[in-house]
């Protein structure tokens, strides 16, 4: 075990996989940094420090700094992947899928199907998502519902440095296209990470981060921590929560969720995206359809409201799900009837 930050887990995993496999290639804006400047390459890394040192180790052909052209970045990843490479492309903010969704949605996700199973597209598209920085409406979003809704993609949302390590390794080695969502408020969080160079977390296996009998809480990313806080607090009152960290939203670990609800009969899904057609609704509808007989209370969702993300501290704080709101929702399902 080594202690490292979430962002360090990102960059060390990429480095290890690049070392291991020549076909792994990194590309994105400022992933080298300093290109064409007096300071020179790597004068400064990308803004999240998630590619620091890669250029020095692997050179310009494998660590490709790009202009501000996200469609070209993702498209290039598609072409690299169709040609047998394993590109790891970075979008600086997940909000930027708006300028390149076609390459994600209509290209990368669909090649294998459209081409009758005769191609593979092992591209990883990494992106920083989420709120908490007062970065306002265009730099704070969690667009995982759009991506989870796209057949052909796998979608990963790690909540700890160890999960980054195991899931990113799987993502890079996976033969299907993977969206890897990194929560920007977690980059500086530290945790223990297994040293084993073959430590891998397979997709579609959620993690039970707290165990209890009374209520099921499902979440991912930054909010998972809030759910744990609530669970720990309620545990002191003798209320037991299953806290499920999804890890991947596609594939979804239906089994762990349904098994838990069969015991608890109560579910609260906590998600950072606005509510309509969101992941919380997706999971609650699943539970309503497949664990109907077990349900003792209406499935609840804790999400932001149906609004863009506001800038001011007070507003963003009110917008994002808080431990208080999660606790209230849990108490509501516990108190139902």
């Amino acid at each position: 075990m080594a202690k490292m930050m979430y962002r360090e887990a990102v960059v060390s995993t990429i480095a290890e996989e690049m070392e291991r496999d020549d076909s792994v290639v990194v590309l994105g804006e400022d992933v080298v940094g300093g290109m064409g400047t007096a300071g020179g390459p790597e004068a400064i890394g990308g803004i999240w420090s998630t590619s620091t040192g890669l250029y020095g180790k692997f050179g310009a052909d494998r660590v490709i700094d790009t202009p501000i052209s996200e469609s070209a970045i993702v498209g290039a990843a598609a072409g690299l992947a169709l040609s047998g490479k394993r590109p790891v492309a970075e979008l600086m903010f997940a909000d930027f899928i708006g300028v390149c969704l076609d390459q994600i949605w209509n290209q990368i996700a669909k090649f294998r199907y459209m081409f009758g199973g005769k191609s593979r597209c092992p591209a990883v598209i990494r992106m920083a998502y989420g709120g908490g920085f007062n970065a306002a409406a265009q730099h704070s979003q969690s667009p995982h519902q759009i991506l989870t809704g796209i057949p052909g993609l796998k979608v990963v949302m790690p909540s700890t440095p160890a999960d980054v390590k195991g899931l990113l390794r799987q993502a890079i080695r996976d033969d299907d296209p993977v969206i890897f969502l990194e929560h920007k408020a977690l980059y500086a969080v530290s945790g223990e990470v297994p040293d084993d160079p073959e430590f891998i977390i397979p997709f579609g296996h959620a993690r039970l981060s707290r165990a209890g009998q009374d209520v099921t809480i499902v979440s991912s990313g930054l909010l998972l921590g809030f759910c744990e806080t609530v669970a720990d607090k309620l545990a002191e009152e003798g209320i037991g929560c299953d806290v499920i960290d999804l890890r991947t939203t596609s594939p979804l670990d239906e089994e762990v969720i349904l098994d838990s609800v069969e015991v608890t009969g109560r579910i609260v899904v906590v998600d950072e995206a606005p509510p309509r057609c969101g992941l919380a609704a997706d999971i609650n509808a699943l539970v309503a359809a497949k664990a109907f007989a077990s349900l003792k209370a209406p499935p609840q969702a804790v999400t932001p409201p149906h609004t863009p993300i506001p800038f001011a501290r007070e507003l963003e704080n009110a917008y994002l799900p808080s431990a208080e709101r999660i606790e209230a929702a849990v108490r509501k399902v516990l108190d139902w009837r």
Partner: protein
Amino acid sequence: MQLSRDALLRAYRQMKIIREFEERLHEEIQTGEIAGFTHLYCGQEAVAVGVCEHLDVEDKIISTHRGHGHCLAKGCDVNDMMKEIWGSRDGLCKGKGGSMHIADVDVGMLGANGIVGAGAPIAVGAALSQKLDGKGKVAITFSGDGACNQGTTFEAMNLAVVTNAPCIFVFENNHYSEHTGVEYAVGTQQDIASRAEAFGMKVWRGDGTDFFAVHDTMREVLDHVRSGNGPAAVEFDTERFFGHFEGDPQRYRAKGELERLREERDCIKRFRESVTGAKLLTDEDLDKVDSETLAAIDAAVTAARAAARPTSDDVLEDVYISY
């Protein structure tokens, strides 16, 4: 450079296969047997063939919605393609892609594409892969005069220049994007090549209805790109003989335009005149190819018509390798 008799015969056969493949499709589509949207390439054969005759299986191409010609020129199997267009489960893409999504990665054909402009960035990625492999191979993207206005095409050109990718942007200017003329839609007086040049690439221009012009131009372009000089662009002036898609009444054409094009701008006719005039091949040689081609297309249609149909279970296959 003088082509060998074999090379000439091969080029002719390739163009002819595309032509007959499409003329036949044009007929078959009237019967309603073929589903979906079909965009015929007929008239532009000299471009696909003039480009692809220089390539081997490791060079890669990306195509457009009007992809049959590029696919055939790059080596996709005629029968498998016909089956695909017929929607057979034995088709090149198991009936899942259809006319607009034919691909065969094994022959370096990375896909026709229904999204205008989507191919260009993908080609840059394929070119970056070629650069990494260091074998002097290239990636080529075909784009129409309409596609050249899509942001992705521009981004791709800049990225290719910045990364010195061995990528070639082949613009097939057939003067129309759907029902709109290139003079209207391309702001800079119909000239696509100059716009590409302003992105920092060397560019070429050529008559896309003259196989030899295309082939000679592409030799230069490929020499340039294979030698590590970075990307290049080329604009070929060409003509499409059918509507934008099958069913298009083509009221945007001038009176007699199609007849004139078939008369004066038919790349296959011009090829024949040129090689027989120069006594490189005889009419007999070419007629033989013609009848072989017709027979091959006939066989392909018969096979496609008889081929296995997909079943509802197939819907769920091939979304993921593992899930």
